[in-house]
């Protein structure tokens, strides 16, 4: 049986890992399941005192439980403030290293929510576990809770409807990026798993000059002859740069631009989102942007 202070420290370490900038590569479920196992150990070791009803406790137990909540309340505030500070610092560092923040608004970070949610739910139990002197007792709870949560999480990723993502608040591009053409920046995304799965993003700069519409900024997509513009700028156009794969894996991201005989651009982003380690229960994501040679948007994600 793991000593209770060790379990408490392990929970804090996993929470710290979750708010750190370390990429999860779709394996975010692993630390989540580790937290579930540690929570089950702590709950068994404390007899679930923090969640017990008052009428089922004696006077001393009520006093211990309520004191744990008082200490836990202060620690919760400290924990949330620390987590948010570390998160913003990590996001700034990660943004600098990867050449800019995501232009897709995936909402509040799922990993930050898991870490703060874990603290919110388990801190009183952690305080009880830390301060109580008796040893723990073996339990089958971790063995049951871990597969149950894993199954529920994977089911949620598979069954939750895919949602559209908004454009990030912190982002804006203005101005013409190709000579003799008008341009517009398009950002879109699809969120799988309601913020606790993965995001597939689209980031593209489209210009048009009356004869044709074309993509600017992606070295893999040539511009029409005679047009001068940014040929490689990831801020303008980048395939997969706004993908987020914390709790599910995004694979096979492709960004294809084709121009038809009328000069209309069809820009298509495709990817597959799957639960980690599983081939089933995935979502095929396709986003299509269609812009005519005079800048009319016929279709957008």
């Amino acid at each position, binding site marked *: 049986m793991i000593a209770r202070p060790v379990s408490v420290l392990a929970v804090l370490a996993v929470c710290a890992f979750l708010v750190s900038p370390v990429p999860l590569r779709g394996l975010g479920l692993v630390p989540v399941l580790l937290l579930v196992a540690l929570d089950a150990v702590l709950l068994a070791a404390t007899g679930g005192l923090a969640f017990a009803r008052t009428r089922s406790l004696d006077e001393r137990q009520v*006093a211990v*439980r*309520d*004191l744990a*909540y*008082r200490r*836990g*309340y202060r620690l*919760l*505030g400290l924990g*949330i403030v620390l987590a948010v500070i570390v998160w913003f610092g990590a996001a700034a560092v990660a943004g600098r290293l990867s050449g800019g923040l995501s232009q897709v*608004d*995936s*909402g*509040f970070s*799922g990993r930050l*929510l898991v870490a*703060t*949610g874990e603290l*919110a*739910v388990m801190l*009183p139990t952690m305080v009880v576990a830390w301060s109580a002197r008796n040893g723990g007792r073996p339990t089958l709870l971790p063995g049951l809770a871990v597969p149950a949560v894993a199954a529920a999480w994977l089911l949620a990723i598979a069954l*939750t409807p895919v*949602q*559209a*993502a*908004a454009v990030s*608040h912190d982002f804006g591009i203005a101005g013409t990026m190709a000579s003799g053409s008008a341009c517009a920046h398009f950002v879109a995304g699809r*969120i799988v798993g*309601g*913020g*606790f799965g993965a995001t597939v993003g689209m980031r593209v700069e489209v210009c048009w000059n009356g004869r044709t519409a074309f993509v600017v900024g992606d070295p893999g997509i040539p511009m029409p002859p005679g047009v001068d513009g940014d040929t490689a700028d990831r801020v303008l156009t980048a395939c997969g740069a706004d993908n987020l794969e914390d709790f599910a894996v995004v694979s096979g991201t492709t960004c294809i631009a084709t121009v038809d005989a009328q000069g209309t651009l069809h820009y298509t982003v495709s990817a597959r989102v799957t639960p980690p380690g599983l081939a089933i229960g995935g979502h095929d994501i396709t986003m299509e942007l269609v812009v005519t040679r005079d800048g009319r948007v016929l279709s957008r994600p």
Partner: protein
Amino acid sequence: MSAQTSGWRPPPVFTTAWITFALVATVLGGLLLLAALAGLAGSWVVLGYFAFVVLTAWTLRSVREEAGSWLGRRAVRRGLVVALLADCVALVAASPGAFGFVVALLVLLNVALGWATLRMASAPEAAVDERQESLRNRSHRIAYWAFALLVGGSILVAQVAGPGSRSWISGVFANGGSLIAFCELLFVLPAMVVAWLEPDHLALETAAAPGARARVALAMVALAIVLPALLSAGLVVLPARTTSTVQSVSISPTSRCDELMAETQVGFGVEARIPVHAMACGDGRTASEVWGLNRSDCVGGDTMLATVAAARCSRTTGPDGTLRFTYGAMVRPVLLPFLGRQVTMQVVIDRDGRVVRFP
């Protein structure tokens, strides 16, 4: 005499509290003076309100025991809790113009809550008895789950609901008011629960009835709480004050022209001024606008803790050559945006250039 003259020493004149108060009063006085000199119409009201809040807190401090016994009544404490929660909602939702009012009120309510609960929630262990210790621990347990469900639940629902709610939650946390409300709940929610749960006569069962000074202090607290709402309601119910001048100008030998200036002011402190400044002429056949009577002239006005939106803007010329211009402005207080009144400014000029109606 001997007992006092031998060991007794007069209290120091310059205490830390007095110096702090003098500094605050000096800064506020200076700002008031600057606002008056700069002709900032409503700024003095906000600064005056800040000064009143500081004075109220000071007065409350000097009668802490008497005020504490009155504020310790359960109904009063629960009223404070409701007011604090409403203030937190206002912090999240209020426009930047109302920010000063809402924050000042929050500070005052926190001071009052401190007196009402004798700061039991954050008192050192040695300062509370067994019953109080038990109560505050229980309050923390309730506050813990209330905080987790209120804040965590809101974020979780917003996160999974859709792109609109995700975008909203991102925006909320970039808003300073939301952060203050978050910190308020984080630090003061247990005290609010103590205030809500504790029965009457929180601590000093032997407390004396409030004296005249205590009554004044409590009346100041009540006034500070209701004053923003009263001033906001005044914007809607107080009669409008209108000033206008019409001046003939000679710009054409064949027409009679007038320069029209008017301003309608509604509210006091929380106020709005709707101006019309225009020139119109009549040549005997028809009246016409020279400037100032266009759709682009139906815009806002000076406001203080109020918003103005054009509800109606029209200019017509009748078959008899009469020019009619109507600007209807919807005025709403920022703090109570569900209230509102329409202020209508009208200009009617006949074909000879005579002012028939203004404003």
